[in-house]
């Protein structure tokens, strides 16, 4: 299996007692959890439950009111937001070159070329973003995020509005990433995304609760639709 992540050594990424409010509306209350290297953690919740807020805090885009997060060694995080941060007037390659220094030749090194190939992005690098489908844009956004070789990947609804084939492709890639030692925190309300997660947390009214913990097991337990539905109630 090809390496998608250069494995770095960190013991555990901890999130401790994060609080966040917007005015008088308390969005996150005492959020605490851990992520180990190679682990995939899901944050499950309905729309407006605070998933995106938590991911933005962990990526450094937003400041929490109180609480902390981090690891014993410095770790890099990269956020893939729900709406793709792509400029529609430019080509896929131009978008990549905005976020990563160097010429086209330098960017197309062995490691990056591997990422493009695995995500299927290499077939449309010179196409304008406005002409790409939703699935292509999502794969391109993920490729741009992966180029920074993050230790922890933060994904906000990565499978929203994608067809089944596209979802399978992205999930397969994320599994490879986790196997290579990368950690994933995925905010979703899609059942298919939970299949690759060892831990599932539910976010309800600002509170985080562990719902499923398969971290000690070798394979993840595939939730049935009833089990999934019950988590959201």
């Amino acid at each position, binding site marked *: 299996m090809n390496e998608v992540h250069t494995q770095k050594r960190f013991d555990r990424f901890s999130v401790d007692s994060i609080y966040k409010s917007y005015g008088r509306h308390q969005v996150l209350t005492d959020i605490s959890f851990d992520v180990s290297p190679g682990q995939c953690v899901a944050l499950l919740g309905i729309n407006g439950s605070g998933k995106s807020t938590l991911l933005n805090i962990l990526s450094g*885009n937003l400041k929490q009111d109180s609480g902390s997060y981090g690891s014993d060694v410095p770790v890099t995080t990269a956020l893939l937001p729900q709406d793709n941060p792509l400029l529609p007037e430019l080509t896929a390659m131009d978008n990549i070159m905005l976020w990563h220094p160097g010429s086209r030749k330098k960017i197309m090194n062995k490691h990056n070329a591997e990422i493009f190939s695995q995500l299927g992005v290499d077939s449309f690098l010179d196409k304008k973003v406005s002409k790409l489908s939703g699935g292509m844009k999502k794969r391109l956004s993920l490729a741009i995020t992966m180029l920074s070789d993050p230790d922890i990947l933060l994904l906000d609804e990565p499978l929203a509005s994608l067809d089944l084939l596209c979802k399978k492709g992205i999930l397969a890639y994320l599994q490879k990433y986790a196997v290579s030692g990368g950690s994933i925190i995925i905010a979703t309300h899609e059942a298919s995304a939970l299949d690759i997660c060892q831990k599932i947390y539910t976010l309800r009214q600002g509170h985080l609760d562990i719902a499923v913990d398969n971290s000690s097991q070798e394979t993840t337990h595939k939730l049935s639709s009833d089990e999934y539905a019950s988590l959201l109630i």
Partner: protein
Amino acid sequence: MFLRLVRTDLKRIKYYSLYMILSAFLLLTICLCLVIKVSDHLYSTNDRTTTLSIGIVMSADSNLSQMAYAAIADMNSYRSSCDFVEVDSVQTAMSMLDEGTLFAAIYVPDNIINDIMDGTNTPVEVYYSDTGSINTFILNDLFRSTSSMLGISQAAIYSVQSIGRSMNLPQNIQNALSNDINSMFLKCVLDRTDNFVIQQINATRAANTTDFYTCAAIVLLMTMCGTVYISFVQNVPKSYVDRLHSVHIRLPHRMISSFISIFVWEYILYVVIYLALACVTVFTGSLHVHLNSCGFLFGLAITGLVSLTVTLISFIPAGVHGCSLLLITGFIVAAYLSGFFVPETMLPNFAKSICRSSLLNHMAHTLCKLICIH
């Protein structure tokens, strides 16, 4: 990262600018040439332009008044622009003004010439039916100049009378002298106004009104085209802005990068407009725009001002439509106060002082001096 942002913005803005600039060049050269060529058939004929009907109310018994009227009516400046109609009374003249039969009415008092001769400053009343048009302005100027001529003739008559008194001439000789000098003014002096240079009325203070409005149009066109760049600034995903924020690219960086991109393409637009107008000058001869290095260099200053305005307005969080509306209405007000639509001398008094100190007005005048060469 900032340099990559600038490079990216320069690539992005091409998408907004290319077609607009091409269209500007084609429209300006082809359409302007066509319009100038057919303009003679659109609004002017071989006949002389319509004259204004001016009513004259004066006593038929007063020979001197009749002489004065005949002399003035014969003057070129009046003959080419006015048709004098004798009206028997002020009331009749007023009702003709109301009906629109007359454009203006002049009430000449009965003893006007005698009054001038003996020092009584009896005013000549002028009534207009329309106080706001360029015709009113021109007529007003004409009447004022005539009034000042009468004042000069009065001064000359006084001088002669004073000489007669100081020389202790007999009264009958003094009277004859006064009448002769008055007659001389009426028959000879007023008649000789054609010998002097006729200065064209110029309400814009520019060397040539056409040149001023050409330069004003350049600034107007550049600003209006700037509305295209509002969507260049505003139509970016929020997640893109958030990601820029995460790599320490904040609002000032984005504003500078956008300004650079807008400046480059606005200058290209300026050069295209300049070239187009120079082509029109060559093909039609109706404009006086010539290419020179000062014109290109001064374009940088105009471009800087326009680009700065567009950039600042684009970053107002009012949406694309809100910002476009703000730019257009704001600029129209500024252009009006700078004399771009109405001649400066016809602006309200408060606007005249704003106009004279307006940056836009100075820019248009300077551009006029640099690129419009006769």
